[in-house]
């Protein structure tokens, strides 16, 4: 491309980007006036006034502590399931695992079955993550309306797709020569993966799984709105009853919880690295 062409291209691309942002505001019916007008100020003021004092009696706090544990266990089991789904999906979606370490200069063209596994796995991974976890939850609630199970399954499947995608990128990023060295001693795909790819990708994988756990805590709160027990459910009940003093405490619990997880995962990352 010539210099002049490139300048024109940048101007056109820039104009299109600005237009797209504008269109998005219009499409979302975003209106700054509604946030700043007198009515909004009044409503917001009312809401804040209702929030104070936050409810903090022992009975309520112990209820929320139990709900926090529910939320945590849904998030934990969901993440565990997601990792269990994500690792095999990622392995089968990684060229260096499926086709061999030197796939870039592949000596033999990928065999038919290997290619089929690769395409199928990438398709499943994409399908799992293209549906948001709340939508999965709505589907699973219809199938198995039993307490926490739909929420766990929903997080497991939706995050399984996300984790599968990210893990496979991390697996494809590992140094190829140690993996090729294992192939050269006669190790098959599974062993090459377990001894060469997995150990090298472990750090970034653990780090991403910890981040997903944090996301799962927030997601499992959202699941409360479709019936799973936990902080989200309490939040929804309080909100429905206009008990904003309770809403305030529940939100505070959530914020503290996420900050604690952030600390814990950061400590873990530093230990592993």
């Amino acid at each position, binding site marked *: 491309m010539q210099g002049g062409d490139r300048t024109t291209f940048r101007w056109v691309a820039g104009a299109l980007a600005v237009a797209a942002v504008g269109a998005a505001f219009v499409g979302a019916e975003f209106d700054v006036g509604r946030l700043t007008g007198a009515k909004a100020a009044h409503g917001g003021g009312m809401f804040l006034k209702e929030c104070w004092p936050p409810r903090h009696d022992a009975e309520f706090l112990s209820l929320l502590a139990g709900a926090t544990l529910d939320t945590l266990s849904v998030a934990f089991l969901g993440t565990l399931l997601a990792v269990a789904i994500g690792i095999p999906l990622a392995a089968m979606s990684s060229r260096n695992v499926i086709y061999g370490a030197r796939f870039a200069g592949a*000596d033999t063209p990928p065999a038919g079955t290997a290619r089929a596994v690769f395409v199928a796995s990438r398709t499943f991974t994409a399908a799992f993550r293209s549906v948001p976890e709340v939508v999965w939850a709505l589907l699973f609630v219809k199938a198995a309306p039993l307490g926490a199970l739909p929420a766990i399954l929903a997080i497991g499947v939706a995050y399984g797709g996300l984790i599968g995608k990210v893990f496979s990128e991390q697996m494809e990023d590992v140094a190829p020569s140690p993996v090729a060295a294992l192939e*050269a001693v*006669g190790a098959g795909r599974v062993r090459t993966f377990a001894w060469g790819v997995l150990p090298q990708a472990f750090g970034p994988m653990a780090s991403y799984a910890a981040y997903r756990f944090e996301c799962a805590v927030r997601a499992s709160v959202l699941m409360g709105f479709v019936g799973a027990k936990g902080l989200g459910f309490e939040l929804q009940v309080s909100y429905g009853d206009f008990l904003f003093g309770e809403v305030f405490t529940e939100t505070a619990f959530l914020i503290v919880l996420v900050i604690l997880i952030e600390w814990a995962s950061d400590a873990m990352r530093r230990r592993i690295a």
Partner: protein
Amino acid sequence: MIRLAGVTRTLGSTPALRGVDLRVASGERVAVVGPSGAGKTTLFRVINLSLRPDGGTYQLDDRNTSDLRGADLRAARTRIATIHQQHDVVGRMSVLRNVLAGRLGVWGWRHASRTWIAPSQADVEAAHSVCARVGIADKLFQRADRLSGGQQQRVAIARALFQDARLVLADEPVASVDPMLAEEIVALLVRSATEDGRTLLVNLHQPDLVRRHFARVVGLRDGCVAFDLPTERVDDALLAAFFTRREADDASGGAPQPAAGPECRPLGS
């Protein structure tokens, strides 16, 4: 043990091997020399069954390798140990696990799985004894990436010894270590191969190391075997010519061009 006849191999659009004939008998120790780009690494990758020749035949233990696939190919690979320049140990794993990985192709799935979880006492002891032979016994439980370059090279040698293959290939094993250490590592390779009666092929850049440790030298140039002689019949000038970088090519700035035609000419001798 190894018999290559007219082996050709193109990498991308570059003819890396253009008709290599080479026979190595069981128990022989051979140095392979040649300027950069001569095809030494490609030759080693063909011999260790990582690359298939485009043409010609490669027989390993009197068996043609061209039709090896899947489990047969992996079984054949277990009989060849390869040591690379560097960076082929898994840095995040302990020395122990890197060494144990040498026998991954040999073990059944049960043995491999239990070793992945927790290696047996017998395997740990066996790994410890090969580490002792290469002088890193005290590093057994350290992470490989915490070791120096020379120590990592010893881990790779220990893995090759633990693999217990009859054919050992070392592709520039001392290219990135200082001269003292280079002497030590080559001596170590040769000594362990001699003790165990293994066949050893080493690709080297140091004439003095070749003279001291090898009885046979194969010179490779432009993807062809240029000479294949007992070391005492190779004079210093010839050897030196094969170690100098090709200044003419470097000066012209172009990629090394094959001097001869597409096929290797038969050797004069």
